[in-house]
Structures are given as C-alpha cells and as structure tokens.
C-alpha cells in the first residue's frame, strides 16, 4: 500500500489479518505488562510479597509445554505444505494435546491460589496476574479449537492461519513469563 515509485517493501509471510491480530494482541498485552510494572513502583514490597505466592516451577513447566507444542505445530505446517495430511494431523493434534496440558496446569495454579484465599481483588498484583494469565489462557483454549479445526482438512492455508495464532500465543507467554513471574 505504498507509492508505486518507491521500491516494494518485502511482503509479509502469511495472512495479513493474522498480523493485524498479532500486533493488536501484542499491544494489549504489552500495555498490560507496562502498567503492571508501573504500578509495582507504587508498592515494591507489596508486589514482591504477592509474587512469591506464585508457583514458579509450574510456570517453567508450562513454558516447556507451550514451546514444545509450538514445535509440533510448526512441524504440522511443514507436513501440510508437503501434502502429508496424516503426519500433519498427528502433529497438530499432539500440539493441541500439549495445549490442554498447559490449561490443566494453569487450572491447578489458580486452584492453589484460591485455596490460599487469593483472588482478583486481593492485591493489584493479583488483579493483573489473573487478567493477563486469564486472557492468555482464553487464547490457549481458542488456539486448541483452531488447531483441531484445521487438522480436519489439513489444508496448508488453514493450517497456516491456525499455527500462526498458536505461535502468537506462545510468543505472548514467553514475554509474560519474566514480567509476571520473575521481575
């Protein structure tokens, strides 16, 4: 969409609307992370005390799960492109399965916090913790459905869109991990 006279910028791989979505999501999560870090400045000890209640090993395990799931999704796309429908389906369903594992661990995480009587309103840190991770988990759930949906036909175009969504979910998580769990 630039002037014809200028040299063409390189074209984006994949679906344009997917990139619009990815950028929008990154803006929203990025704003959330920045606000969280900004609010922390008003009460560093309170935030630190809240953060230690989180289960970091579970978060690390979840990271490994999502990353591995992203690897499977990428393999699924490669298979779809080379016309290997069966291999594509297996990879995508395995990726979705690991996504379910992520959600199960996440649910345990929430349940453990609830057992300690911690909720959305307990502390500003937890407001953001639940908002950001909850919103992310909703995307994981949507991504699982998408993966299962495109595994059905195993067409490269559809698989490309679903796996791009899945990598976006992955991308957001690796950025969320340090900000919410470590800093």
């Amino acid at each position, binding site marked *: 969409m630039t002037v014809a006279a200028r040299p063409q910028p390189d074209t984006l791989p994949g679906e344009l609307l997917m990139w619009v979505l990815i950028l929008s999501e990154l803006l929203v999560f990025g704003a959330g992370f920045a606000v969280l870090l900004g609010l922390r400045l008003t009460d560093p000890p309170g935030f630190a005390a809240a953060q230690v209640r989180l289960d970091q090993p579970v978060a690390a395990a979840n990271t490994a799960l999502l990353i591995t799931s992203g690897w499977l999704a990428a393999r699924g796309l490669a298979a779809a492109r080379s016309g290997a429908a069966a291999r594509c389906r297996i990879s995508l369903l395995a990726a979705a399965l690991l996504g379910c594992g992520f959600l199960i661990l996440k649910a345990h995480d929430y349940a453990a916090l609830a057992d300690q009587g911690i909720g959305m309103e307990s502390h500003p840190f937890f407001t953001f913790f639940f908002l950001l991770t909850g919103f992310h988990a909703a995307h994981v759930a949507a991504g699982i459905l998408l993966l299962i949906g495109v595994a059905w036909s195993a067409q490269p175009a559809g698989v490309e869109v679903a796996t791009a969504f899945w990598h976006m979910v992955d991308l957001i998580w690796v950025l969320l991990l340090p900000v919410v769990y470590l*800093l």
Partner: protein
Amino acid sequence: MTRITQVWIGLLLLTGATVLLAELAPPRAVLVPGALILAYGKARLILGEYLELRQAPGWFLGARRGLAGVMVLFAVLALAG
C-alpha cells in the same frame, strides 16, 4: 535435524537458562536485564522462524527493534523502584 527442531532446542535452552537465572536469585540489577534478554531471544526465534518473519527482512528488523524498545521500557520500569 530440521531447522524447526533446532529452533525448538534453542527455545528450550533459553527457557532452561531463565529457570537457572531465577534459581540463582541474583540482585535485581542482574535478574531484570537477564530475564528480559532471554525473553527477547525466545521472542525473536518465534517471530523469525515459526512465524517466518525472517523471509521479510524489513518487517523482521522493524519487529526486532520494536521488541527491543519494549524490553528496554520494561527494564527501566522494573529497575526504577
């Protein structure tokens, strides 16, 4: 080994490094930039390889710059307190 798998191993190594860093519990001045640089590395791999942005060098460069800027912002906010 395919490139996709190499990337996966790279991501796992970066995650391992993040866990290690957290276990060592260094002072914030080390922890904050360390954790953010590792996250940047992971994000860059996902964007460039899995989302195939490497095929569009101009966009990829822009994305890396934007990401780096955001990481710097996070670091400043995290270290300011």
